[in-house]
């Protein structure tokens, strides 16, 4: 069963919505109950990111043999040990994404990332039925950060003919998908390249332009129907965010070197390695400069149309995944590479000091995918790693926890959301 989160998420997309929830089985094993969460004094900022790669893993190379702390590495989780961040990582297995209606991949992505059943559009098309977890958190965090969240993408080989569920991982609502930016150069520019020096007269002139735009919108609003007014309101939210960006002070941190990687194909190959490293650097900077608190990171898209050319491969990962007997080794390599990118991001966060601790200690990252194993499209045992100690709220060292009861993956989303914003509560399905 899906759950629904309240506050702005509720106001934005769910007013009058059907709401449902589960009785909450405890995920206490994940939570730090020692009361030392705030031992350093004032709470450190807590950040959240989803980290997604397409098409699942291979269970026999993923699931650790032992539970609890000190879990043993497996081939596909080994990169977390290689990067020396495994103690910050909890591996959750045996969970089930409970979405009942299946197209393949869609239910895996929508359920894992949002908890909502997708909205079916016919054929093999769907879109999210509600906001993704990153947007629930970004909407409920009341920190005033602009942008409230950023969306990063690495592989551009994403599904283009199954509508928005398979194309994007961040969704503010059913009709508000948030496309990722694939160019690190552009992300740098968005984050660091647009500060307006206080003495620059263009700043106030740009604000004057936005004022005129808002007045236009107000005059227009009266003539529009309800659906259009909603979209115009979303547009104006963007205008307000833009104004904040123009008016804000540059951050106190040192501006990182300008990023030049644009993630353009070279001889038909994607520069996956370079783009991934650049995106991870940028996310670390964005967080260490406290420019935003929430991110989504789509390493590869759902379904797995990516060709891992940098690993010497020539086939689409998706095609290989349906023939796992033939392509087992190659498939395994792609998954290991995916986890390496996650491990690398975690390592960079861990190596960035903050207060007495580090950025990984004050963050929560959710690694996930759109199915358990690619060839079966399973929504049971989708790969899930929760990294970071969330400002002391999550256990350290991390654990391997295997649900004996096929617990709902939504429980994990709820736990993370509540760790970020305690006032977020699950809601029951409202009868219609």
């Amino acid at each position, binding site marked *: 069963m899906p759950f629904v989160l309240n506050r702005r998420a509720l106001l934005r997309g769910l007013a009058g919505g059907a709401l449902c929830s589960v009785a909450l089985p405890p995920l206490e094993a994940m939570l730090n109950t020692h009361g030392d969460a705030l031992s350093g004094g004032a709470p450190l900022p807590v950040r959240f990111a989803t980290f997604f790669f397409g098409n699942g893993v291979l269970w026999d190379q993923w699931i650790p043999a032992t539970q609890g702390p000190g879990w043993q590495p497996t081939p596909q989780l080994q990169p977390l040990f290689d990067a020396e961040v495994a103690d910050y990582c909890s591996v959750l297995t045996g969970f089930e994404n409970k979405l009942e209606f299946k197209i393949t991949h869609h239910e895996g992505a929508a359920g894992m990332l949002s908890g909502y059943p997708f*909205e079916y559009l016919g054929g093999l098309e769907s879109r999210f039925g509600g906001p993704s977890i990153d947007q629930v958190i970004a909407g409920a965090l009341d920190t005033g950060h602009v942008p409230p969240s950023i969306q990063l993408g690495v592989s551009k080989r994403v599904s283009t003919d199954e509508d928005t569920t398979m194309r994007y991982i961040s969704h503010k609502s059913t009709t508000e998908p948030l496309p990722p930016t694939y160019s690190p150069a552009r992300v740098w520019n968005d984050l660091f390249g647009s500060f307006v020096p206080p003495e620059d007269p263009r700043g106030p*002139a740009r604000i004057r332009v936005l004022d005129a735009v808002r007045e236009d919108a107000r*005059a227009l609003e009266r003539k529009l129907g309800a659906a259009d007014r*909603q979209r115009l309101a979303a547009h104006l939210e963007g205008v307000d965010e833009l104004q904040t960006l123009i008016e804000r002070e540059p951050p106190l941190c040192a501006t990182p070197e300008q990023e030049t990687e644009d993630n353009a194909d070279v001889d038909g190959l994607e520069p996956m390695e370079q783009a991934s490293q650049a995106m991870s650097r940028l996310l670390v900077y964005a967080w260490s400069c406290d420019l935003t608190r929430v991110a989504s990171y789509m390493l590869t898209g759902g379904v797995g149309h990516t060709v891992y050319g940098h690993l010497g491969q020539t086939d689409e990962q998706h095609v290989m995944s*349906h023939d796992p007997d033939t392509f087992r080794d190659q498939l395994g390599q792609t998954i290991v590479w995916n986890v390496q990118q996650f491990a690398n991001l975690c390592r960079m966060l861990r190596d960035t000091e903050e207060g007495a601790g580090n950025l990984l200690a004050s963050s929560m990252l959710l690694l996930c995918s759109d199915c358990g194993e690619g060839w079966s499209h399973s929504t049971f045992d989708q790969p899930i790693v929760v990294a970071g100690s969330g400002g002391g709220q999550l256990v350290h060292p991390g654990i391997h926890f295997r649900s004996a009861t096929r617990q709902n993956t939504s429980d994990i989303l709820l736990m993370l959301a509540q760790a970020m914003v305690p006032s977020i509560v699950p809601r029951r399905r409202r009868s219609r």
Partner: protein
Amino acid sequence: MTCPTLARTPALALALTLLAASLLPACGPSSTWGDGDGDDDGGGPDAGPRVELAPLRMRRLLDRQYVNSVRALLGDEVAGAAEPPENLVSRGFESIGAAEVAAPAVAIKRYEDSARAIAERAIVDLGVLSPYLDCEPSGPGDAACMETFVERFGRRALRRPLDQDEVARYAALGAATAADFDSFYTGASYVISALLQSPSFLYQIETGEPDPDDPSRVRLTGYEMASRLSFFLLDTAPSEELLDLAEKGALADAGGVRAAAEAMLDGGQGRGALEAFYEERFRLRELTGLSKDPGKYPAFDSHLAASMRQEALELLDHIVWDEDSDYHELLTARYAYVDADLAALYGVAPPDDPEAFERRDLPADGGRIGILGQAGFLAVHAHPGQTSPTRRGRFVIERLLCREVPPPPPDVVPKLPADPGQPETMRQKLGRHMKDEACAGCHALMDPIGLGLEHFDAIGGWRDEDRGMALDVTGEVEDVGTFDGLAGLAELLVGVDEVNRCWVENLYRHATAHVEGPYELPLVDDLTGSFAASGYRVRQLLLDLVASPGFRYAAPQEEEEE
């Protein structure tokens, strides 16, 4: 009771089952009237089958429409600075995405970046502003001249005359900024920047006006019609002349709209817009960034991929604009437009200029024919290292026949049964799929079509055999018939009215930015009929479509939140 639409009601979406979803469209919009004849404006409520229209939705300009609009306003040089955000797709169409999907905050920032870059470049060579200035500014504070500029530029930018408040607002913005920077033209550039960020520029705003003949529906206003026509037919903002026609009321009836459209399409000006639609529906854009196994297909590179795209557009242009002939030739053309790279792939003589596209007859003994024999289609609908009859079949089912491929049954395990350990043809390999009943349900729709194209490898090159084994290219289109090879498939499809209706439906959805409801189907049927009557000429279909009630009328907007 207000019936919610599927799109905008999370409450409903949450509770939906597949069954419920399929029932929803019965809950349609409220404008109802009969219309026995697509061209008849006066059809009263009892004049024919019941027709219900969708309400109007504002539509964000597509990226190409944005760039072309800037070009129309300020010329090529300035348009080079235009960099709008990407289009967002909904229900398979960018135009529907433009009408349904909210602009994310990052898009608003891109619009500002783009508008500022355009505005800066617009005052480098002041000649581009001359159409909007009939005065020589006496200085930064020349208010009258600023006002003239706002009125004139504003009318083109917002595609309608500005009201008094708008003129005052933008003139004040221009004056204040001119004073700050001590430059009239800097002031004007901020007016440009602001107008290009106004929702009235970024969206096609349609609110309609009461239809004097039928109170249950609204008619697009003259200016709204000018924009709708121009963006649909030409992918750009309406010209001064078209706005003048709107002002005179010449776009209020079907005849006026058709006459204006005919003038607009003169000289093949509609090429670009139709090409863009075709590229989207026929998935030619997937050629950008397409990966192929370089070991198996050393000839494949981004240049060849670009040639494949161009070839497809050349054939479309030839049939629709140069010849104005029956569009079925898209399926049956025994010739192709090739550059040197494609000539090598197809085994025909290259043009003298290797980059030029010239018409060549295709080898008579080869099976290559029409768009399903074009390398672009064949390569996009294949894997990097092998063909994909499933993808090729799915394209025919979904994009040519407008049928839906159902999702796999819940218990299906889509893993190929064990490899027999010896070479097999694709037909044999997929045959292992078909042995599993659960798989066969969907694959039986798609694979037997794609298997008929097995003479074409994963980049569209001809092959006599598959891994040394003879090819069997017989196939079947469910409920239509069997065929032998590509030529047989093309012939079969030419005789199927479902294909014609699908083409019309795609164009209708693209033009009206929504998926037609069940009570709108008679309009699509009418258009399919008139398409046939015209000898399947696409140019005529475009004219019939813009004159049809579905393009010119709508249900009133819902006033309340659903």
